[in-house]
């Protein structure tokens, strides 16, 4: 079991700062997700931890040992690539055992580990096939198998599910999480998909423009987003964030010192003119089956409410919107950061 500590890590290409001042810690045996939009530096961060790129500053420690200057093979890691990086001319068994052969693990031990991994991943009948004879999901499993047999304490994954269809992605999500727990690996997993992050992670490191936006557990990230960016990135649909005027009401025009955030499921639709409710006009309605998304306009702001079942409201109708004090998140519009919650 190894923890991973990243301190003040930076990767600059000339004036471009792909990563700057990134620090976080992943506890041994936990599942950390590096989350962010494309170009935020999450893949670069993973490649730095793997040793495939050299940092321009900062340090990386794995299991207490400084590995910043070590080659990938000496870091005690395994890695699964987005495109799987399977060797096309080798069979499934040869692909899985490639690293063990290179490391001169003896044949009996190789066979034992291969059989275990194949059983774990349901690849037993496919061991003689070539990668080109496998489906996307099966190729993904072979890539996982290669990471498992290495028995490295830390496993890195770079968007491993992005080439799979939605159904398969859902299954693999559960499977990878299950594997990580069973083998008690320390996992660092890169994705741009917030659903993957929320469902799999013990810890989410949200990145933006090469910096950490928030580093927290999924429930904390959801309940207490530290910034407007974090608030808008997490949740389907994401949190409503509208500008506030100086009096603390939803602004009639764009801009204002403060911003108010509220999650769609925390909004209750009440009759128009209800005292204390926000008076708004319905712009669009999206029926999803289990619930309905109602988008309503109030001043310069647009608020989406998630109500259960099928709502009997037409576009253009005047409605009231209400939510509790606790559901409200206040942000500073200039810094983009959360304003400390008022004492209850």
């Amino acid at each position, binding site marked *: 079991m190894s923890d991973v500590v990243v301190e003040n890590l930076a990767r600059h290409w000339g004036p471009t700062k792909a990563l700057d001042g990134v620090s976080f810690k992943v506890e041994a045996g936990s599942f950390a997700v590096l989350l962010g939009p494309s170009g935020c530096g999450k893949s670069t961060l993973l490649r730095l931890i793997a040793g495939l790129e050299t940092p321009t500053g900062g340090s990386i420690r794995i299991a207490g040992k400084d590995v910043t200057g070590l080659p990938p093979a000496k870091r005690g890691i395994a890695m699964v690539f987005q495109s799987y*990086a399977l060797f096309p001319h080798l069979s499934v068994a040869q692909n899985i055992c*490639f690293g063990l052969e290179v490391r001169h693990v003896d044949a009996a031990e190789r066979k034992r580990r291969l059989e275990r991994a194949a059983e774990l991943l349901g690849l037993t009948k496919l061991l003689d096939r*070539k990668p080109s004879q496998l489906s996307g999901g099966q190729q993904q499993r072979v890539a996982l198998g290669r990471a498992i047999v290495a028995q490295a304490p830390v496993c890195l994954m770079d968007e491993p599910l992005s080439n799979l269809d939605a159904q398969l992605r859902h299954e693999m999500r559960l499977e990878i999480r299950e594997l990580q727990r069973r083998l008690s690996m320390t996992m660092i997993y890169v994705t741009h998909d917030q659903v993957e992050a929320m469902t799999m992670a013990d810890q989410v490191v949200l990145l933006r423009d090469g910096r950490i936006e928030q580093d927290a557990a999924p429930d904390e990230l959801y309940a207490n987003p530290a910034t407007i960016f974090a608030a808008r990135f997490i949740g389907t649909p994401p949190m409503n964030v509208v500008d506030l005027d100086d009096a603390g009401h939803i602004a009639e025009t764009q801009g204002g010192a403060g911003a108010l955030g509220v999650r769609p499921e925390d909004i209750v639709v009440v009759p128009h003119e209800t005292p204390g409710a926000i008076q708004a006009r319905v712009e669009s309605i999206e029926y999803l089956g289990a619930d309905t998304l109602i988008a309503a306009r109030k001043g310069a702001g647009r608020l989406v409410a998630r109500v259960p079942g099928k709502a009997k409201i037409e576009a253009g109708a005047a409605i009231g919107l209400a939510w509790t004090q606790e559901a409200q998140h206040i942000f500073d519009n200039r810094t983009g950061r959360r304003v400390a919650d008022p004492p209850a």
Partner: protein
Amino acid sequence: MSKARATIYGWLLLGPAFVLLAAFTHWPAIATLYHSFHSTARRNRPSVYVGVDNYQGMIDDPVFWQALINNFWYAVGTIPVSVALAMLMALWVNEKLAGRTWLRLAYFTPTVLPMIAVANIWLFFYTPDYGLFDQIRGLFGLRATNWLGEPGTVLGCLIVMTIWKEAGFFMIFYLAALQSMPPNLAEAAAIEGCGRWTFFRRVTFPLLMPTTLFVLINAIIGAFRMVDHVVALTAGGPNNASMLLLVMIYDVAFRYWDVAYAATLTVVLLAILGTVALIQFVVLEKRIHYR
């Protein structure tokens, strides 16, 4: 569309390619075979069927055997070295190094040059006394050598020049194959602690095999098709020491006008090349992974 119409369309589409192939490949091949069993027509003696007389004459011809043996050594001397060099150079210029575009261009230059120009450059290199090689040897006090005039050195001279010319050409194919190889294969191997040599032996080399087969076939055909450099440098001499099969066919056909004998030699050349290609495909095909 009716079946008859479809048939007509089919033949019309096939037509141009078929006519060209038939006129310039199939018909000449059959004609060559036909001529090899007939005597050469002279002014008052028309061509007649002579059975295997031409082949018998060929077997009794010491020049033929000399050309065949020369060609064998020429192929053995040029092909492995130029293919290995091509792979090495491709691996090198595929690395991230400064000025690699110029390096690639430099390696490819010999292929771009016209063959006669190449022959002339090397004619200067090999010239006794004031040629490049002898000038360098002169610095060490070694005596002048008539590189192209000695039966013992002339074939070696042709081999060296061919390697110089072919390696850059084959390099382009290897470079293209290397460029299409996904870089994360090397990264995946690096994470496993795979060294450069092991990675080459276990991954790069096997994945280059389709290219190697292609290059090998081209190299062998090239080795038996060599004629222009020999004509420009030595004309097959001295004493047939640099005589190759195609040079001999050219001489027999267009200097002595013995069409029947030239046809006989051509049939033998085609048979050799066909056999080699067949062996390569059958033997190597099974061991090659095509992406």
